[in-house]
């Protein structure tokens, strides 16, 4: 059985912790204290729940994908429609939570890192809603891949800061956001977008995202009168997956499968398969699995999906893997694109490239499952932002990015 994680030191077994410059330590302790205080506060929760409902449009449907189910010819497939949230992905759940926390803590400025731009857009949106000044750090490479989201953030009044260091993708955007935070820690709240980073971020993000799993649990019990057999979710840093998995952790009969990006394939150097090929290390504030060389240098990741293009993973996922509670599998760019098209044509839903990875794995396992089995896919976001990437991929005969 799995114990309560994290412990007081922010550890999930041997993972997690708080590996940051001393300058940030008091800010993280203050954040932890404020979070614990407000997450138990009825007014705070009422305000958050009201925004989730009235502003973001929750609850999101747990949609029975009839045609996809027929296509697979196996398990009954349900889609948790996080793509129907305001701003088009699950990221808004956490951005609203942390944004309200920033206001309660008296901060007027927020910063965020973003990969695909979904967390950046969510943060820019929440900043506009709450009247906060917002800066979003985004790798230059990702700014090219996700021009639409860059424009959206600017429309919403956020400043998008191009990050030109390192690989110019999500990991470097995270580094730059942390560096900026070190310099402006006294008046700035860092709205971290995934279940990664130093404690208490993985805890905070999980708890603001657990609404996904809480709703799914209630909805499937209402519709089917029982829990699902398998839940599949994409994992980059792992926020939608941990939010989906967490409320089911104690339900031993519910299998969790996290799907990570295999890029060009895990037998090539171009992948983001942290769980399949990574080793334990400290990166961006916590101990977790990590793509690194034997000397401890972090290796660049690769995925057609900017949101999964990350060499690290949240510490709670590493813990769930090591205790055997969750399984993590790789899906290639090509498999993701194929699954994306399948969902478009069977259900009329264009999923985000990130979510398409989860659909792709469902395509592998659903046909093998009996018709009495239930499979839930976390459809974390919609694919409008990815249309250009897909066009480029097609144009170059599957070799784009």
């Amino acid at each position: 059985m799995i114990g309560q994680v994290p412990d007081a030191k922010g550890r999930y077994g041997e993972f997690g912790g708080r590996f940051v410059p001393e300058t940030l330590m008091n800010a993280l302790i203050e954040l932890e204290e404020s979070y614990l205080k407000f997450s138990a506060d009825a007014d705070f929760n009422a305000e958050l729940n009201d925004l989730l409902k009235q502003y973001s449009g929750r609850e999101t449907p747990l949609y029975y994908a009839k045609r996809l189910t027929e296509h697979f010819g196996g398990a009954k497939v349900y889609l948790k429609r996080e793509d129907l949230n305001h701003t088009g992905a699950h990221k808004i759940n956490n951005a609203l939570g942390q944004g309200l926390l920033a206001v309660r803590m008296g901060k007027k400025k927020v910063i965020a890192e973003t990969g695909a731009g979904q967390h950046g857009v969510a943060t820019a949106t929440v900043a506009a809603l709450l009247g906060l000044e917002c800066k979003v750090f985004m790798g230059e490479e990702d700014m090219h891949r996700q021009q639409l989201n860059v424009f959206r953030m600017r429309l919403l009044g956020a400043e998008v800061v191009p990050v030109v260091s390192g690989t110019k993708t999500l990991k470097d955007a995270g580094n730059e956001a942390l560096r900026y935070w070190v310099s402006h820690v006294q008046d700035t709240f860092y709205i971290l977008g995934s279940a990664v980073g130093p404690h208490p971020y993985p805890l905070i993000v999980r708890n603001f995202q657990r609404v996904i799993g809480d709703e799914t649990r209630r909805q499937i019990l209402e519709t089917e009168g029982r829990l699902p057999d398998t839940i599949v979710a994409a994992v980059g840093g792992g926020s939608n997956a941990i939010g989906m998995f967490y409320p089911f952790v104690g339900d031993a009969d519910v299998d969790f499968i996290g799907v990570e990006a295999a890029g060009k394939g895990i037998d090539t150097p171009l992948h983001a398969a942290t769980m399949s090929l990574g080793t334990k290390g400290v990166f961006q504030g916590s101990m977790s699995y990590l793509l690194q060389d034997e000397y401890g240098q972090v290796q660049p990741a690769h995925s057609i999906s900017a949101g999964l293009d990350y060499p690290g993973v949240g510490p709670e996922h590493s813990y769930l893997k090591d205790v055997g509670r969750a399984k993590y599998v790789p899906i290639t760019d090509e498999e993701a694109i194929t699954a994306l098209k399948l969902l478009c044509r069977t259900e009329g839903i264009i999923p985000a490239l990130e979510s398409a990875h989860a659909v792709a794995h469902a395509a592998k396992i659903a046909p093998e499952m009996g018709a009495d089995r239930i499979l839930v896919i976390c459809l974390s976001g919609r694919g409008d932002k990815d249309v250009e990437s897909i066009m480029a991929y097609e144009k170059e005969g599957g070799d784009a990015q």
Partner: protein
Amino acid sequence: MKPNFSMTQRLLMNPAAEGGLSAGTPQGGDSPAAAAKRPNLIEETFRKLGETGGTALIPFLTVGDPDLDTTLDIIEQLEQAGADVLELGVPYSDPLADGPVIQRASARALEQLITVRTCLDVARRARERGVKMPFVLFTYYNPILQTGLDLFFEEAARNGISGLIIPDLPYEESEDMLQRADRVNIALIPLVAPTSSERIEKILRSGRGFVYCVSSLGVTGERASFHDGVDAFIRDVKSRTDLPVAVGFGISGRDQVQRFSELCDGVVVGSAIVRTIETLIPDLMNADKREDALLQIRKFVAELKV
């Protein structure tokens, strides 16, 4: 081309690393118990400076920027320029606490495939060339972790490292490292920041070597001015510890060194030196101009000595 050898294989391939220490190496390969009894070279250096009221000049460089031979030549110049303690920076792919200057130096050094092991070799080779000042290894946590802690501390002590600064290892996560460092008489140097407030007390309790005061909020890099509260912050730290106190982050010129030397026992200069090296790389790589470039670095550092 990237070498494919494990750390242990590399050690086996490099027998010089196992012995060949100059007689003058103060922490050369004796038993950990014996090592723990000897005074640490950093403590000795500050004690001697204290007798004359001097301030330690602590330069930083990134090992392997632009290449190993140049690093060794620069180390000699730094000592001749009056450096008292040297910070050897281990290049890292994701240097969170560093500004653009040291990020660029790290990237250049990584192109030279510099590892923790190479940095320890550089310390040993500098000793063999007769460099006397204590060496402090400045490294992020992950490269040491992947080296393996047992192997790292054994090799660090054997190669004459006296101190260790790990910018992403706060007090709460440092217990194991502190014990390991103590066993081989290496000082795990604590950092305190202007935001540390009530944490200062417990950080200082486990401090060794000297206390590194981070002058201001932010990453490494030159600064034109400092926060108003910095003097009070340094005085506060000074009043709470018997350890020498050094100030770093953003100090780049003689005036600033002078200003801080009146408040504390040591001054760290990093980015300004790394930037000086950076601008001189074309000359350092040119046989005709190399000597002159090395002299320019020496002159720049000598100017900082107060």
